[in-house]
């Protein structure tokens, strides 16, 4: 299994500034199955690392609508992790199947 990790540069600065509030790092997972992100809307606290797993045999990507983060093509069972260090609404989609849309809400 290949693990791809991406961190937003601006987010790194944010993480340093808010590190004391984050405490123990939290994690969350999003599954990709039958051309759907599940859950389609995920709410997490600042500092959460979200990991996506592709259960389809079709490749998918996690591509930020604003270009803030993004994976390459994930094959079957590949994962991609992204740490969210700033509050916001992070919409994303699959570049190969743009109808696949979802959001991470960071509070």
């Amino acid at each position, binding site marked *: 299994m290949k693990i791809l990790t991406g961190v937003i540069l601006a987010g790194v600065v944010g993480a340093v500034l808010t590190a004391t509030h984050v405490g123990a790092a939290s994690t969350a997972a999003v599954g990709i199955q*039958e*051309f*759907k992100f599940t859950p389609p809307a995920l709410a997490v606290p600042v500092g959460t690392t979200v990991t996506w797993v592709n259960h*389809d*045999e*079709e*490749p998918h*990507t996690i591509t930020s609508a604003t270009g803030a983060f993004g994976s*390459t*093509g994930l*094959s*079957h069972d590949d994962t991609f992790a992204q740490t969210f260090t700033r509050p916001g609404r992070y919409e994303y989609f699959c*570049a*190969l*199947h*743009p*109808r*696949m849309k979802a959001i991470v809400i960071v509070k």
Partner: protein
Amino acid sequence: MDTIDRRGFLECMAWAGTGLVWVFTGGVPSSRVISPAAAADTKLGSFTFVQISDTHIGFKGQANGDPTATLQQVVDRVNALRPAPAFVLHTGDQTHGQKAGAFDTVAEILKGVKTERIFYVPGEHDVFLDGGKDYLDRYGKGTVGGRGWQSFDYEGTHFVGLVNVLKYKGEGIGALGEDQIEWLEKDLAPLSSSTPVVIFSHVPLWAVYPQWGWATEDAGRALGSVKRFGSVTVLNGHIHQVLQKVEGHVNFHTAMSTAFPQPAPGSAPAPGPMKIAEADARRLIGVTEVTYVPGQHSLAVVDSTLG
């Protein structure tokens, strides 16, 4: 009377080692088995070409653990055709998600095809990671502005290869874009209406199943420019199964993949590789042979499976 379902029919066909020819009567498709001898029955001025599609090198799944092997089988089958095909069209998705090294593997295997030339159009799997850079570096040469689309004439038939995977619009549906449609209109303008026209692209140019993105948003205008022609054949891939439709003088046909089948439109929660045993999948993957015979209204399209 004995009845037989499509799968049973395909099994018989595979056992007999033959292909399928599709015949349209009043827009209703029917099929009959043809023998290799009939396929080789050629008339003066006729020619054949082959369409291969959706080779998806880099895929590994239940339906096919090694798409390089099935592609090689297809190449062997193409090389056994008599007469040899004048050329081959690859209608896209050479790679499975631009997997590293996949383009090279496809090129290496297709070097073994005994034909004059292979023409390509990209599938979304070939371009989605880099906007088509790698694909166009390899196959853009000689195409319009290096952008992948092109036309050529062979024995009086006009062929047009269109790119409809670089401008995904809306809900992941293929799109051609204004530039390409304008080019197409100019490209077709000087032709006599009696010129047979063959258009090939990856995503179907007819609305097969928009809910799964199996359609091209702006195909209507492109197809408007071919309405005046007496014989138009549209060859697509993308959906990994044979589907056909006739609209006026336009025959639409989608090809099987050489790698894995996808479900019939709406028959599953989502598109994607069918999770079936390899032996069953072999009956649903294969290659398309097209024969042009002078004086006949439509081109004869023959699909044959590997199973």
